[in-house]
């Protein structure tokens, strides 16, 4: 049995704190609690704090702290953060137009799972999805909790352009494209909310620790 948390170098300016290797709210909560503790205790010491499913990447300036000292400090911080009560998740409503021009793969996802398009919409919009992490492109949320009844493989041929705001399914994940980009996800709907807007403060709509609810409009 591995014992967690583990501390590993990620290059010469990064240290990864790893928790149990699984996609689960309980694990992700530890990551977010550690990040929140570090931001409140020492907001200026770290260059970046990048949370993911089960790890926090701490980017630091080695001119100010040695690896050994940082590791010892993070040990202590994990202890402290463990005692904190998890932050309540903030619910974000995503108004969604399912199917039609901006949801071209809705009927494919339905027939693949022997369901009607209406079933897919009902199932997809019935769950609140936790945002485990943001990554890949600006503002892209990694959402947990897709119902396996509407899981569907990626398209064999990726599309050259998927418009920003498209909502898709790939395997057992669901997500929203923040930017126009190529991609192979099965697109089932679209939202007019902007997930990434550089002129807005904050520029990204979602953050780890949010709950996302798709509401058909």
């Amino acid at each position, binding site marked *: 049995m591995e014992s967690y948390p583990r501390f*590993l*170098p*990620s*290059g*010469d*300016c*990064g240290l*990864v704190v*790893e928790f149990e*290797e*699984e*996609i689960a709210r309980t694990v992700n909560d530890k990551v977010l609690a550690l*990040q929140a503790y570090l931001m409140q205790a020492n907001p200026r010491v770290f*260059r*970046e*704090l*990048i*949370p*993911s*499913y*089960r*790890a*926090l*990447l701490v*980017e630091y300036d*080695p*001119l100010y702290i*040695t*690896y050994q000292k940082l590791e010892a400090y993070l040990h202590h911080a994990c202890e402290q953060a463990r005692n904190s009560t998890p932050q309540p998740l903030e619910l974000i409503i995503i108004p969604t137009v399912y199917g039609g021009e901006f949801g071209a793969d809705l009927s494919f996802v339905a027939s693949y799972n022997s369901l009607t398009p209406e079933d897919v919409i009902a199932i997809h919009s019935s769950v609140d999805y936790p945002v485990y*992490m*943001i*990554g*890949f*492109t*600006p*503002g*892209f949320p*990694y959402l947990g909790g897709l119902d396996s009844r509407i899981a569907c493989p990626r398209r064999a041929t990726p599309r050259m352009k998927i418009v920003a705001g498209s909502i898709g399914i790939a395997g057992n994940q669901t997500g929203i494209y*923040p*930017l126009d*980009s190529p991609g192979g996800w099965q697109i089932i709907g679209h939202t007019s909310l902007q997930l*990434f807007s*550089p002129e807005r403060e*904050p*520029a*990204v709509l979602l*953050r*780890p620790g949010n709950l996302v609810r798709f509401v058909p409009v």
Partner: protein
Amino acid sequence: MSSIEVLRRGLLDTIQDQGRLGYQQFGIPCSGAMDNYSLLLGNSIVGNSPDEAGIEITMTGPRLRFRGDTVFSVTGGTFSPTLNEIQIPMYRAILAKKDDILELGTALQGMRGYIAFGGGVQSPKQMGSRSTYMLGRIGGLGGNPLQIGDIVPLGSLPYKHLVCLTKRNAIANDFIPVIEDEVILRVILGPELERFTEQAVSNFLRYEYCLTSQSNRMGLRLAGEPLSHSRSADILSAGLSLGAVQVPGHGQPIIMMVDRQTTGGYPRIANVISVDIPKLAQLRPGGRMRFQAVDVRVAHSLIAQEDQKIDSLRRAWGSTAYQVTMDGQRFSVVVEEI
């Protein structure tokens, strides 16, 4: 305020500084100069603070017209710069007058060059930085590389200050990086070392890898001895550091650079150390590399050495011309020998 006009584009000319910090948790990469050492050096030569922005050029340089008097320097790859068609040296502060034309050719050595201007490029900052991130359309001028007809705003310095900068001696040769097409890159192994076979780790450190043309500011794709995983080639997506060496299922490494996606799902066999990133930034497709494992402490002492080196340059030169702020007003102070 001074400025320059773009008369001809290079292959990819972008405004870059030392990068955008603190936004990777929201999926926004740090961007910034690929060869940050050359940009730091250029800033030192023209008397700027390290965080000022310059122009990064790639393979082929642009043609630019100065719209006011300024001082500039060209560093990094050898782009044979000319001012009004007369060859000018790199790594020197050069005085440019209104309507002078700066032209940079095709790199004879290296991949990327930097033009630093006295007072820095003064395009608007977005999220704390002027660095251009093309995919997210932020930084630079409207998030884009420079286009023909663009006017790039520059900080302005008093004429006397400019002249003073150009009278300085050339920097010592040991500051100027040697650009090679075969490099040794020092790495810190991991963090997913256990996801590779022992054979893969020893192959990685033994064989030469070649930079392919499918490389850009996001990542550098390598070709060489394939590296096999000990179990699946997927990990739970996690934050990526600059220089991370990811290995997807096909076994060919990808080194993640400044515009990298902030998280990735392939195991990382190693991470290139900070002081060796500029060597990678200057490597051209076809260039070759070998990897050498070092300890974190070794990497840290190299970072400290380089910091002292740049700092000594800045201190030695800062003693002739500097800027002071008094009661919120900025003054240029020039100290001259009498």
